[in-house]
Every structure is written in C-alpha cells, then in structure tokens.
C-alpha cells in the first residue's frame, strides 16, 4: 500500500482519471481496513484450503399440490441447477462434480442428482450423486462438496437439494407386492390364476409414507409437541413466533431481499417467481386452530408448523483460488461445520442445541461473535424449545456434559428474513437456502460471521459457521 502511494506521488502531476482511480481505491481501501478492524480474525486455517460459496439460488418454495403439482422431483432440481448456471454464467463443463440431496425418493429417479444434471444441460462427463440425511440433506450435500474440494479432488462442485411433496411414492402392501413379484415368476396359467386368486381385500390397502420416525413410529409433529411441553413452551409463544416468521418473511419478500429466488416457467402454467406460503395472519385467527397432533391439549397446530412444500435449491462451491481464477467474487467462506446426533425419541429436534456450542468451540468463537443466525424452523415449538435449552445451564450440565450454557441467539439477529415456517420447508432443499441467506444477510448487514443450524429426523443435527467474503 505504501509503495503504491509512493508510486502515485512520484507520478505527479496526476491525470484526472488517475486521480479518480486513486480516490476510489483509497476509499475502498479504507472500507476494507474497517472490515478488517471489525473482524477480530479470519477463520482461515493454515494448510486448509479456503472454500467459498460463489452463489446460491432456489426455485420459489410452493405449498404442495399447487403450481408444481404435475411435475417430477428432477424437474424442480433441473430448474434450480439451470437457474444457478444462468445466475453465475458458469460454463457447463467447468463443474467437476454434483452432489444433490433428497429425502422422499421418487423411485424412478433414485439418483435424482444425475437425472437433474443431465436434464439441466450439464456435461454428461460430470458425475453426480445423491445424498440423504432428512432435513439436513442439502447441508450434507454442501459439506460433501467442501470435503471433495478440501481433499484436493475437485475445484468446483455444485450442491443442492430437492423435495417434491405433491407426489410421494405410495406402495402396494407387502403382501400384494409379494404376490405381484411371484406372478412374474409363475410359468403356467394355472399358477398365475391361483396367485391372483390368493389376493384378498386386505392386500389392496396401500402403504402411505409418513413423516414418522422408523425407530419410534412417532410422527415428527407429535414429538415436537412433546418437546415443546418438556420445555414449557406455551401455545401463545409458538403462535407469536410463527407470526413473527411470516411477518418477517413478508417484509423480506416485499423489499426484494429474497434474491436467491429465481423465476421458473412451469410447463403449461405461468412463470412462478415468489414463495406462496407466506401468510401473516393474526393471533386471534391462529388461536382458533385446534392442535394437529396431540388432542385435545397439544400446542402444535397447522399455523405454527412448517407446511409440506415443493422446492429445490442449488449452490456453487469452489476453492477460493479457482473462484478468483475464474473471475468470480465469492459471497462467503464456508468454515467449520459439525454433525451431531442424539436420542431420536425425546430429543428428536434438539439438533441446534447440541450442534451450536460444538461448532463455535471448533471455530474458537462465542455466541457474541456471530452476527447472523439462520436456524431451520421445523416447528415454532421446536425453535422455542431449542432456544430455552440453549439458555439453560441445567440442560447443558445434565445432558450435554458442558459446564455452562451456550446462550440463546439474540432475536434481532435471528432468522430476520423469515424461516421454514413461512418460506416453506422442502426437506432436502432447506439447507442451501439457509446458507445462501446467511451469505446474503452478511453482505447486506455488514456482519462477519454467520451460523446455520438445523435439526433433522433421526435425532440428528448440523451447524456450520460462515464467514463473509471481504468486500
């Protein structure tokens, strides 16, 4: 810097253009210096590659059974991938690998990553695989990508997730499937007829997928209601939080902050460009609803839970050198992350409570260092329960083996652009939305560190620290 200054001083008299340039440069320098001053430190680690988020997009998240109703999951995924290509101007053959998350699998496209990539026009030389980890599937996709880059195997990876709840695989009963499979093997007409004759009415009852734990057979909403009760979260608190989520989401949508949303021309329908689940109501209306899971005294209702959603998201993750070499201005660094897991019955949705202190410790940060929090809102009751758990010394000591609580995030930094309750929650697409939102909020609000945390079925959880890319 000093030598530059000397050089420019020596080269006087200055042309006006040069002067302007100099001025601009010195301003930018001072901004940079300020940011550096605010940032106590960068989280870069010696010997570890810096991994950056170049950009992230998502299709509008729509209530299941609405405009996307006639599509297939890979159609949505395709839209997100194409949107990412358009947004970043990325050459299709510059991608080394694609990782995509999904939860409820369409059996025809069980490796939905590959089908979507081919359909989105990526090079057929780019391999793709699908990951699944319930509601943190796309977090898993992103960290898988980060792992590939850190290990030096790839330089540019697309990660994402898709969920399509408008159509889920409904199966024949096991008995019926068995009969039908035997039918294939039956050689004679007689054998076939006798197999057909063995079909009873009970065989015809279909098997519906449920958002229930396999290990406990408890639906997630039921568990959330019990969790809320365990932490003494009232119905009022839940309704208030849900209302907050919808109100903030509406505000963010109206002021154009949700810039990760791309327009999507749905075949046979109009272009969709907005999430359609954001519906700020009022406390009176919400109070009228009956509990959805535990009757008659439960507190979790349709209004304070996330709804069934269709949607897809995608992000471009690169090593910093590669991004800079390709001329990109990255949005954020992806730093430390953790996965946690606990009792799938009584602590099903407490992932954020366990993951947050762990990832902070890993990064050498405290809760106060974080400027932006994005937590996945599965249920208002689940969020409130997590906040109370994080605020409790007793819980930290009794169940987490910690000396003290980690503390609850301050609400003014917490999910300020809405969350899964209002924007919607396509299971495997939510993770990328959280990370992209953190990056955008850090840029917008000028913070340095962001924290993503989410719970997932199976009693698992995830958290990641994101650092703003110097502007």
């Amino acid at each position, binding site marked *: 810097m000093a030598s530059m200054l000397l050089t420019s001083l020596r080269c006087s008299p200055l042309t006006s253009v040069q002067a302007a340039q100099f001025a601009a440069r010195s301003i930018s320098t001072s901004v940079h210096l300020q940011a550096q001053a605010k940032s106590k430190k960068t989280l870069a680690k010696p010997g570890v590659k810096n991994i950056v988020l170049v950009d992230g997009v998502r299709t509008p998240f729509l209530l299941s059974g609405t405009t996307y109703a006639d599509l297939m999951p890979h159609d949505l995924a395709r839209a997100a991938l194409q949107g990412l290509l358009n947004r970043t101007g990325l050459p299709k053959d510059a991608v080394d690998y694609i990782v995509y998350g999904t939860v409820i699998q369409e059996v025809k496209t069980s490796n939905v990553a590959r089908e979507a990539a081919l359909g989105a026009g990526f090079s057929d030389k780019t391999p793709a695989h699908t990951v699944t980890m319930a509601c943190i599937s796309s977090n898993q996709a992103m960290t898988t990508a980060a792992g590939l880059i850190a290990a030096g195997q790839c330089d540019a990876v697309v990660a994402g997730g898709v969920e399509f709840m408008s159509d889920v695989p409904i199966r024949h009963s096991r008995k019926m499937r068995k009969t039908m499979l035997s039918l294939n093997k039956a050689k004679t007409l007689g054998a076939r007829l006798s197999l057909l004759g063995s079909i009873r009415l009970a065989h015809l009852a279909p098997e519906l997928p449920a958002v229930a734990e396999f290990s406990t057979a408890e639906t997630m909403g039921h568990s959330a209601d*019990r969790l809320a009760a365990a932490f*003494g979260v009232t119905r009022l608190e839940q309704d208030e939080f849900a209302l907050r989520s919808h109100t903030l989401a509406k505000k963010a949508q109206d002021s154009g902050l949700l810039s990760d949303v791309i327009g999507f021309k749905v075949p046979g329908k109009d272009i969709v460009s907005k999430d359609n689940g954001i519906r700020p109501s009022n406390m009176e209306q919400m109070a009228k609803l009956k509990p959805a899971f535990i009757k008659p005294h439960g507190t979790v209702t349709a209004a304070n839970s996330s709804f069934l959603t269709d949607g897809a998201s995608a992000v471009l993750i690169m090593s910093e050198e590669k991004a800079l070499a390709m001329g990109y201005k990255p949005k954020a660094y992806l730093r430390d992350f953790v996965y946690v897991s606990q009792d799938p019955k009584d602590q099903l949705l407490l992932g954020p409570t366990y993951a947050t202190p762990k990832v902070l410790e890993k990064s050498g940060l405290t809760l106060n260092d974080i400027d932006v929090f994005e937590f996945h809102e599965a249920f208002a009751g689940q969020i409130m329960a997590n906040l*109370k758990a994080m605020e409790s010394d007793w819980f930290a000591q009794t169940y987490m083996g910690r000396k003290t609580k980690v503390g609850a995030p301050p609400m003014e930094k917490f999910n300020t652009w809405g969350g899964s309750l209002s924007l919607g929650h396509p299971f495997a697409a939510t993770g990328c939305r959280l990370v992209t939102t953190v990056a955008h909020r850090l840029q917008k609000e000028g913070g340095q560190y962001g924290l993503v945390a989410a719970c997932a079925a199976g009693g698992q959880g995830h958290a990641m620290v994101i650092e703003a890319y110097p502007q």
Partner: protein
Amino acid sequence: MAGVRALGSLSRLTTRRYTLFPGVTRRTFRVAACMMARTHVNYEIKGDVAVVRMNDPNARVNTLSVQMQREMTEVMDEIWGNNAVQSVVLISSKPGSFIAGADISMIQACKTAEEVTSLSQEGQKMFEKIEKSPKPIVAAINGSCLGGGLEFAIACQYRIATKSKKTVLGCPEVMLGLLPGAGGTQRLPKMVGIPSGFDMVLTGRSIRPDKAKKMGLVHQLVDTLGPGLKSPEERTIEYLEEVAVEAARGLAKKQILLTKEKGLMQKIQDYVMSYPFVRQQIYNTVQKKVMKQTKGLYPAPLKIIECVKAGLEQGPTAGYLAEAQNFGKLAMTSESTALIGLYHGQVTCKKNRFGTPEKEVKTLAILGAGLMGAGIAQVSVDKGIHTILKDTTVEGLSRGEQQVYKGLNDKTKKRSMTSFERDSFLSNLTGQLDYNGFNKADMIIEAVFEDLNIKHKVLKEVEAVIPPQCIFATNTSALPIKDIAAVSKRPEKVIGMHYFSPVDKMQLLEIITTDKTSKDTTASAVAVGLKQGKVIIVVGDGPGFYTTRCLAPMLAEAVRVLQEGVDPKKLDSLTTGFGFPVGAATLADEVGIDVAAHVAEDLGKAFGSRFGGGNVEVLKSMVDKGFKGRKSGKGCYIYQPGLKRRDVNPEALEILESYKLTPNAAVSSDSDIQYRLVSRFVNEAVLCLQEGILANPVEGDIGAVFGLGFPPCLGGPFRFVDSFGADKLVEKMRKFEEVFGNQFTPCQLLLDHAKDPSKKFHK
C-alpha cells in the same frame, strides 16, 4: 373373560409393574390431626381449581393407609367448603405411583370379618362422597393405579392418565384372594360394561393406558415428556397437572361434557345387556369358567361374581352391602392368607440378601444353545446384558438363535415391544462356535447336557480361557454342584443356577451354593437373576437341591399310582383337583420322561429306598420306546401338532400294564391318592429345611409354588403344614407308612411341629 388361572394369575402378580400393596408395614402413629401438619396429603389452590397432592413420606409408593384416608377426608371437606374452588385435581407427587392399593397391613391387623367389613364400608362411604361431589374431580394418574387406587379414581368424575410404561390400572385383589372392597365390583361393570368389568375384577389383569382409553376407563391420555428444563419424570407430572387443571376448569364450566357419544357396538351391547335373561347367561358362563379354572379352590372369584350380580340385579344398596360383607369373609379365608403370604414372599425373593456384588456382570457367556441356553440368552439380552451364546454345531446354534429371535418377536407381535427395540436387543446377542471373547466375560452359564463328564470337560476348557474374576455358573437340575466344581481350579467362583423351562415364562431361579462358593459369587449370581426378572431362592448343595428333590418323590408316587391302574387322565384330574396347575402325568411329559427317569435313578441312588415307590423301569421302558414326553410327541399322552385335545398313549398303558401293582383299597381312595402325592412332596420340603438345604420356609414356599406349581391357594408346603395341621398330616402319613414303609416316614421337624401345635413355620 378368562377367570382366574391359578398359576397364571400368580405369575402376573409378580410382574415388576405390580407394586400393589407394598411392604409398608409400619402403622402411622396417631396424633391429633389439629396438632400436626398434614404429611400425606396437601393441596394448593390454582385460581378456581384445587390441586390435591398425595405423597406418602414413608414409602416408595402411595397406599390408602389410615393416615392417607384421614388426611384426604380433611382436605376434601375443606375444599368442598371453599366457595372459591369450582373443581378439583387429584394427583400424586410420586413419579411411579398414583395409589398402588390399600394398605394391606390394615386388613391383616383385623381379627374378625366384621372389622374388615366395616373397613370396606368406610372406604365405600368415602368414595361415594367423591362420586357425588358437587365440584368435578379429575384424577390425574401417573404410575400404578391399582386396587383401592383404581376404585378411588373411578369414583372421580374424570380421569386423565399418562402413557408412561409405569402407568397401569387394575384391581389385583383377586390375586390376593380378596375382592375390590371399596365399590370396585359395583362401579367397574357399569363403567366398562359387564364383560370387561368381569374380566378386570376376575383376572386382576393390569390395563395399560391406551387400552384403558379404548375401554372408557380413562377419558384422556397425556404423553410422557423427555428431557427439558427439569428431569423427565418431574416435568411429566407437572405437565399432567397442567392438562388436568385445564380439564377441571372445562368440566366446571361445562365445556367438557361427561356424556360420551356411544359407539354402535357399545349401543348394541347395552341393548343386549338390558335383558335379564342375557345377563343371567353371562353370570352362568362366567361362573362355569371360574369353576373350571379354579376347581372351586379359590373363593374370591365366586364372591366377586356374587357382588357384581347383587349390584346389577338388586340395586346399589344390596350390591355395596354384598361387597363389604364378602370382603370381610374373604379376608378371613386361609386362601387369602396363603396368597398374601406368597405375595410377601415373592417381594422378599426379589431382593438380593447377599448385598451388591463387587463387579457388575456386563458380558455373559452361555454354553449350549439348547432350550435352556437360548431361554437364558433371551431373558438376558432384553435387559441389556451383552450375551455370547456358544454351541458346538452350526445347527444347534442356529436353532438357539432362532428361539431367542422368536421369543422377542412374539412380544413385538403382541405389541409389548417395538420391532426397533427387538432389533436393538438382539444386537446384544453374539452367536458363536468358539471361545472367542470369553476372555472378557464376567460370568459363564453352562447349559450343556446333564452328564458329569461333559460338564467337567466344559469347565476345564472354559477355565483355560476366562479371566480370573469370571464366575462359572452351571445350569443343572440335579447334579450336585460340588461334584461339578471338583475339577475347578477356583471352586469359590463356581455356583449353580437352576432355571426352569421355559425360561422366559417360568419366574423361578434356584441358585445353589456349595460351602466353597464365595459370598460375592452368590451376590453376583443373584444380581444377574434379578436383572433377568427372576424370583430367586438360594439353597444349599445336595442331590436334587430343593426343587428337584421335592418333586422326585411325588413323581415316584405318581408312577406307583399309574402302576396301580389309575388312568393318566384320572391322575391329572386328581392333582389339578388338589390345586396343582398341571396334572402329575402331564407334568412328567412336560419335564421329559427321560429327564424324570434320569433324576429318579440319580436321586434313588443318593437317598435310597425313601425315594422309591413306582418302578424306575417303567420310565426307562418308556424312554426305550421313544416316549420322552411332549418333546418327542409321545409320553403318557400323544401330542399332535395343532391339536389341543390329547389322547392317552395306549402303548404307555401297555407298559404300565406289564408293571401292574395291586392297589391296597385302604389307601387308594381319591383323597388318599392326593395325600400320598402331596405328603411326600411336603415331607421332603420340610426335610430340606431340617437339613439346612433351605434357608427359611419362605423360600421353600416360593420355590415350590413358582418352580413346581404347588397349589398357590395353599401358599406352599410350609404354609400348608401350618394351615392343615402338622399333626393331621403326620397322622395320614403314618397310615400310608404302614402300607408302603419308609417312603412315608415323617421327618423329625414335621414330628416336632405335630407334637407342639404352637409351632408354626410362618408367624
């Protein structure tokens, strides 16, 4: 609708859930109420709802003791007199118990039937006031709600129960030879319908919360909570209270209505039941079933039917009176004393009188994956013990592992276990053919073939691979432990653990110590047995220990009876008629004729002619022909898969015919045959006590009833001697002795008791 199955009901009585009538024997001393703050019941007023909390400071569970009842009456009177209170919530502060029943010592302290009747009437009056309360009362139930506790709850206007595994509702009084004496026989049939009502009071079966909701026994269920800002147990009770308070408000404001929309089936049932003729049919059917299953040996079920009938046919006044009077009568019966004695005995035998072992058994290795070995594995893996099951062949191992899987899977089918729990329990099981991992085992239980040489070989092989602190337990039914231990390098670590087949159903475990067995080894074996859910007796070493030794003379007598020309079916009906749950001939088939022959021969050698009677050759001939009992399809009876009916095996009759004895008419009446069988059993049991094989009469009674099916209504051989009279028994034995000789010579201890009637085995 099943009536009382003698053994079945007893076995239910001992499930851990049933903590009814705990051993709260200390009577609360009386102090004028006004002088002392209440200790058992207190209440708090939350707005317009009074929350009444019960907590017996002196016991693990709440019981309706004198103190509890008096304080409850005081509290309720205050609440009824308080105009600010509109409704009431009744809840227990104890995590695992609402009210576990009446205080049994209160009943035992009564001298006459009239005293007990008036106790019952006091209870009835108290619950009548609750039932007619002008302010709705919500019973908030978490944990055991049994006997008097359930009667209290059903007198309330509304019931909310938690879905906790500890929450059970039922009236187990019948298992103690009593009846629900505080309105239970009157309110239950009205609440859940006559068939279900009969089922509950006659079987004493415990009802889980979800079933209770379906039956209409409770109105609302509350989930148990996990970790939160307080411990799960504490917060669950708080949550239950919150929900109950809301419900109480709703009831007071008439937002919750008590008249429930009845289902179609319910309507049809009610309509059908409105005909006296139909009801009469039901009484008859129930009576018949009870008679068939109890042989009329248990008075309680019959009295219960009487009470229910009186209430339904002649109105509440007659019903309540019948209930109180019959309750009084039953409390004075010997059957009730016997059953209560068994209950107390079983509680005693669920404790480890040898203290806490130095090292907990975490890894258990079982040798032999046969019926016994696999059975022991099954009851271990589901308690979280890592279990190695070793066999010598792949086929044997596969069969054994399948048995464990099936045992657990059957529970999944009955929905008492989820498939996930089954899988995670099975992950505790390692099946193998070698001694891999035995160096980490804390205990070995061998269940190989009953042959001393094989046992020796196994013991030596195992001792070469196990760590020094590892215990070697041998599962044998007759081989003396000291003989097995003879080849051991460390006899202080050798102990006998005699399980009964089928292991997952039979509750008894007989632990045998030699004079070399260390106390810590015993403590450890008892701890493992208790973990496996067993009722445990610890006995001294000797041929046949205690249980097998008592059974052998009785079976020898049974063979003689058969040789005398009594048909196996007749023999069975004579023994079941005396109260044995399984007839002697069937029992021999179940045990295995080969095993019986083996034991008879071994013990015959050890004890000489005293163990004679029937000719051992009869059993041997049967074994030679392949009639080994149920397992081989033929024994005294013929067993065909899928067929419940069984016929007597004619070929077995032929064998008996060839060994025919001429009966002596003086000792061959039905009653004589019964006493010939029983007196030899009882005499041998008393001899075991005399010789110090048994530590005390309580374990003797428990072992005989839970392991061998000695009639529960008699309470075990020792209680039988007490109630029947040692002198009368000796008199009968002398008569038999004249005909058969020393097999019927009463032992010295029995003679002592006969001489001095004040001597009793049980105080």
